[in-house]
């Protein structure tokens, strides 16, 4: 018999969390809109947020749009570059993660726990430390250059760390591949060995088995991994800053970060951010929903 307290206990327990999310997630997002669609103080160059949506003006959006597709479209290259880098990095992460996850799920045997622990190790190594590691290795006199020049025998000194797109994409792959590995491992590990045996009994050979059984079963993991790494990469500015520090490799995140640092450009930063969020809205909602559904099913 549910008494009075039990009816109210759940909402009361949930209240602090709900208030927190409203106050520190919804309100900040609203403020971004108010700053972006507000005006700029003509003297101090500081943004004047418009708190009332009826007073919203779209000057900043026009400015950003103009820089994207107008005659002076200097925002466009970083945007296209971001898309290119993200696509290349995601595909590379899949290619790297698939065999590793597959091996760990099916063949690792008694080393399984150890390998899994090593695979998740990057999660507790700071991202900045991992980037620092590559800065150390890729310095002009660093280990990588020493190795490719065979310690000075071959006169080939590659400049890795200033505006080299290869380094930035490698950095993205290095930074994000563990987040592709785990969901992929989880998906591959769920494939029951008897299913594979059944496939084999029905005459599927190595490649056919892979293409018709394993690959389709791994799709949820691949999709989850792709979203998990593509979404944060869209806002990443620090990988390029750490490994290149050059406008030649700047991404959307760098545009936003630079606008934030420049007085009077908060509105542009907000407009760029809203643009990114609009593009990412559908995948974000889709991912959240599919997760919620998976929860209900389990």
């Amino acid at each position: 018999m549910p008494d009075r307290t039990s009816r109210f206990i759940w909402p009361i327990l949930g209240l602090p969390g709900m208030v927190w999310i409203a106050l520190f997630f919804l309100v900040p997002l609203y403020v971004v809109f108010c700053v972006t669609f507000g005006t700029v103080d003509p003297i101090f160059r500081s943004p004047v947020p418009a708190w009332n949506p009826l007073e919203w003006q779209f000057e900043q959006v026009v400015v950003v749009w103009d820089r994207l597709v107008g005659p002076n479209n200097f925002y466009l290259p970083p945007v296209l570059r971001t898309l290119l880098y993200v696509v290349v990095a995601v595909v590379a992460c899949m290619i790297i993660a698939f065999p590793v996850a597959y091996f760990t799920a099916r063949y690792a045997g008694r080393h399984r726990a150890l390998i899994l622990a090593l695979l998740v190790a990057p999660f507790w190594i700071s991202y900045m430390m991992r980037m620092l590691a590559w800065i150390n290795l890729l310095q002009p006199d660093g280990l990588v250059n020493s190795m490719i020049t065979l310690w000075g025998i071959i006169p080939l000194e590659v400049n890795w760390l200033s505006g080299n797109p290869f380094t930035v994409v490698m950095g993205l792959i290095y930074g994000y591949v563990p987040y592709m590995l785990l969901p992929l491992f989880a998906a591959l590990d769920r494939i029951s060995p008897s299913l594979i045996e059944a496939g084999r009994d029905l005459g599927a050979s190595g490649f056919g088995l892979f293409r018709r059984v394993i690959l389709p079963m791994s799709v949820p993991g691949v999709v989850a991994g792709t979203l998990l790494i593509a979404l944060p990469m869209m806002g990443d500015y620090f990988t390029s800053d750490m490994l290149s520090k050059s406008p030649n490799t700047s991404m959307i995140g760098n545009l936003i970060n630079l606008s934030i640092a420049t007085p009077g450009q908060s509105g542009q930063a907000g407009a760029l951010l809203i643009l990114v969020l609009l593009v990412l809205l559908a995948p974000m909602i889709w991912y959240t929903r599919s997760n919620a559904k998976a929860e209900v099913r389990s």
Partner: protein
Amino acid sequence: MTVSPAPAEALLAEAQEPRRQRAPSGMSGARAHGLAAITAVYLLWSLVPVAVVVLFSFNAGRSRSTWQGFSLRWYTWDPDGSVINDESIRNALTHTVLLAVIATAITVPLGVLFALALDRWRGRLPAGANFLALITFVIPEIALAIGLLFMVTYLATPFGLGTTAQIVGLVTFQLAYPIVICRARLLTISAHYEEAARDLGATALGAVRRVILPMLFPAILVSAILVFADVLDNFVIVRYLSSDASTETTSMRIYQVARAAPTPALNAMATIILVVSTLVIVVGWLLYRRWSKRQGDSTDLISFTGNL
């Protein structure tokens, strides 16, 4: 940078299943060997660079690429600025740990209560709140950081940037961990336990406190470890919401000076944070194992890393 609980959740489920017998490999040994080689190369590529950072924190010279002998000078006293001598490094270390402790202490109870509420409270309001909590997870961190930065600068001006703002940002960004992990665990806890407790005379709150919370302990432990380790590594939120040098963290410090010919003291600082998070995870694992043994659950590393 955030670890999504989604794979963690999937692994949690897998860890709770009884271990399946692996079928003997029918594939050619050569193929398995090839995969093993790829995995080994991947692990080397993934971990050796970090090991090099740790190694060079013990370098006797100033170089971060030429080994000049073993020394602890970059940790202890060194006129060039060791961890102990350089105030900015010392301060970054203490501030990072302070943020991690406070943010974990707020995030975990907040998230656990929220998960408990969502488990029983049906309706549009809790469903919407749950959806928002999950969105905080996939939204690019920069969006949340800039939102809070704008809020503090233009709306809640007396609030001010600095430690408090950093903690608020971190808690918001991390809140989904305890929620998702505890909810996954709650789904495996049958409502019968609570009903039995109620039949035996416990109040609703008493049943939660004395029956549900103890059963939730591993999930709470795992989310606390995750939040703590993740806050130690946070960069985007703590940077946008910092005020001055006193609120600089270790990741900000690395970002700041990594490209400006730093000494191995920077490597030493990064190593110390790595040691702290490793210690937290190891202690967490020992606690988890002790608890699981008492409960007769599986105690292997997989179920723990699975939970992670």
